């Protein structure tokens, strides 16, 4: 009996020991496998499964070689919101973006008589660059030229096809075409030449993946800017540093521009410099005007989205921080360091975007940015009020039959005030890219607007 009991206990010990050791072995093997996987990650390099060339327009094909970059590029179709961009924090972005004209009704007034008074929406991600511009009533209800494609689509195949191999020639010929004709063009095999919004090939050289600029408007614009700074015959693809290219690729489109003359050449007005008054001086000298204001009769300018110009006036540009550093920060994928191609507000990615340089808690960094944006937003609203007050005064002066010279003097100030207000409002950072510069511009807006208002009011009283 005693023997039997011992044997029973012995068996239990053996079973327990067996289970314990089995568990230990499982853990060890799990650890071993984990180490193996991490080591494999460490070995991971780019595997070129497929040849990409200048003619590979479809990002999906590039995605086979660079899946991490492609995956993040696809995410530009996802909704994003910040306090002042999108629909506010936590809101959904599905469907067309929010109507800016409803959020800030003064926009409808300052654009009176121009397509932007019909439809002017918030931004969505890069994935919508081509789609959204074909949905906006500015394009569906007004005739627009092929020039729009310089930025809204991956256009190299189209430009090369039309220019018989020469991109710049193709660009020049596509610009004045009606938009639908330009978008509808096909190659010899009947394939549509415009199919994608911005694509890999727009910013990357297919052999080396080095950054490059391809938009002819930018290449001409930066050349004019550098010439003014005393650098002759500047070619960004030859002369720019890698860090400069990390801003230039974005500056290809996130800029102020206009369509010059009957050729509708997409032109960046940088021959005098990038500051708001230097661009204004350029337009004044060219005698350029976007449209005649429907309420006041002023020949006014429309600012586009001068992110590149404004960033250039800010502290980050001064410190050599490029667009990509904050908007496409590095992230780790396995052991690879990959630039995040989900281009979006750094506020949504403070950890990677800001903290590599600013070793400060996330909440604190967010607080700093939002403080700048709140102050900027308040000043912007005040400047808008000053500008619409000026418009009221001019309307009243014209109605009262005030002397032409006085009305013209007030209109000249309207042009100046509105150009500055619009330049700031159209810029997509709510003040952050260059807070002090933008506050200076809004200060000038208010000054010019109130001066103009005084001029118009006095003219009425004089009569």
């Amino acid at each position, binding site marked *: 009996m005693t023997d039997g009991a011992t044997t029973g206990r012995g068996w239990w010990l053996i079973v327990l020991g067996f289970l314990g050791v089995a568990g230990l072995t499982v853990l*060890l093997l799990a650890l071993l496998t984990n*180490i193996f996987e*991490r080591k494999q990650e*460490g070995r991971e390099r780019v595997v070129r499964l497929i040849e990409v060339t200048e003619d590979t327009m479809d990002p999906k094909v590039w995605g086979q070689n660079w899946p991490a970059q492609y995956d993040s590029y696809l995410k530009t179709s996802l909704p994003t919101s910040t306090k002042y961009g999108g629909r506010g924090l936590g809101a959904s972005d599905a469907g067309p973006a929010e109507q800016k004209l409803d959020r800030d009704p003064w926009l409808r007034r300052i654009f009176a008589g121009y397509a932007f008074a019909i439809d002017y929406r918030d931004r969505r991600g890069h994935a919508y660059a081509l789609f959204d511009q074909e949905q906006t009533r500015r394009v569906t209800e007004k005739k627009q030229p092929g020039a729009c494609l310089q930025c809204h689509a991956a256009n190299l195949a189209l430009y090369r096809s039309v220019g018989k191999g020469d991109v710049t020639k193709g660009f020049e010929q596509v610009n004045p075409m009606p938009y639908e004709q330009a978008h509808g063009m096909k190659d010899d095999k009947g394939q549509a030449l415009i199919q994608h919004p911005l694509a890999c090939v727009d910013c990357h050289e297919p052999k080396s993946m080095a950054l490059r600029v391809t938009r002819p408007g930018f290449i001409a614009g930066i050349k004019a800017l550098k010439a003014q700074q005393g650098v002759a015959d500047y070619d960004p693809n030859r002369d720019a540093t890698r860090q400069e290219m990390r801003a230039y690729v974005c500056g290809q489109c996130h800029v102020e521009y206009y369509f010059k003359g009957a050729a509708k050449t997409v032109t960046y007005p940088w021959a005098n410099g990038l500051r708001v008054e230097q661009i204004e001086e350029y337009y004044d000298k060219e005698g350029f005007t976007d449209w005649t204001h429907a309420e006041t009769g002023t020949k006014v300018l429309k600012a586009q989205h001068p992110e590149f110009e404004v960033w250039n006036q800010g502290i980050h540009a001064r410190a050599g921080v490029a667009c990509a550093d904050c908007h496409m920060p590095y*992230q*780790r994928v*396995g*052991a690879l360091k990959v630039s995040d191609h989900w281009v979006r507000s750094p506020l949504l990615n403070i950890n990677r975007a800001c903290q*590599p340089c600013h*070793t400060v808690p996330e909440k604190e960094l967010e607080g700093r940015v939002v403080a700048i944006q709140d102050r900027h937003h308040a000043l912007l609203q005040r400047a808008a009020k000053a500008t619409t007050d000026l418009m009221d005064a001019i309307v009243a002066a014209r109605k009262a039959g005030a002397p032409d010279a006085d009305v013209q003097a007030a209109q000249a100030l309207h042009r100046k005030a509105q150009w500055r207000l619009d330049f700031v409002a159209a810029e997509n950072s709510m003040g952050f890219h260059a807070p002090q510069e933008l506050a200076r511009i809004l200060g000038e807006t208010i000054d010019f607007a109130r001066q103009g208002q005084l001029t118009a009011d006095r003219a009425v009283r004089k009569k």
Partner: protein
Amino acid sequence: MRRLLVAGLLLGIPLGIGAFTFVYAKGFSYLSTDPRACANCHIMNEQYDAWLKSGHRHVATCVECHLPHEGLAKWVAKAEHGFRHSAAFTLQNFKEPIEITPRDRRLVQDNCVRCHAGLVHDLVQAAGTARGDIDCMHCHAGAGHGAGG
């Protein structure tokens, strides 16, 4: 005899796997002061690459700044770092970019002063204690592996 055989089999297999894992994971390298050991896990690649190009590389390896220098404290810190880093890297549950802990930051500060005492001892003395009142890395954030190395 049979019991010994069973016990031997039971323990031998995990022991073998464990030994293999240890060697495969370059376990012995952690007993050295070679900076390459710190980049065994690719998470430290950037720090290692930056250190290679830094001014400090001639005079200080990873452990000169990141571990205490006295006997027991050194091994305690080494074990604590080793365990925490391995666990985090295995479970992949850490925040990126990686951040130094406040305690390890003080440790690095002590090591700054250990070497640079001749230059900074007036500064450190004037500020009170060597710790807390003055933070070398507040201004010299790039020292070791970063801009300005």
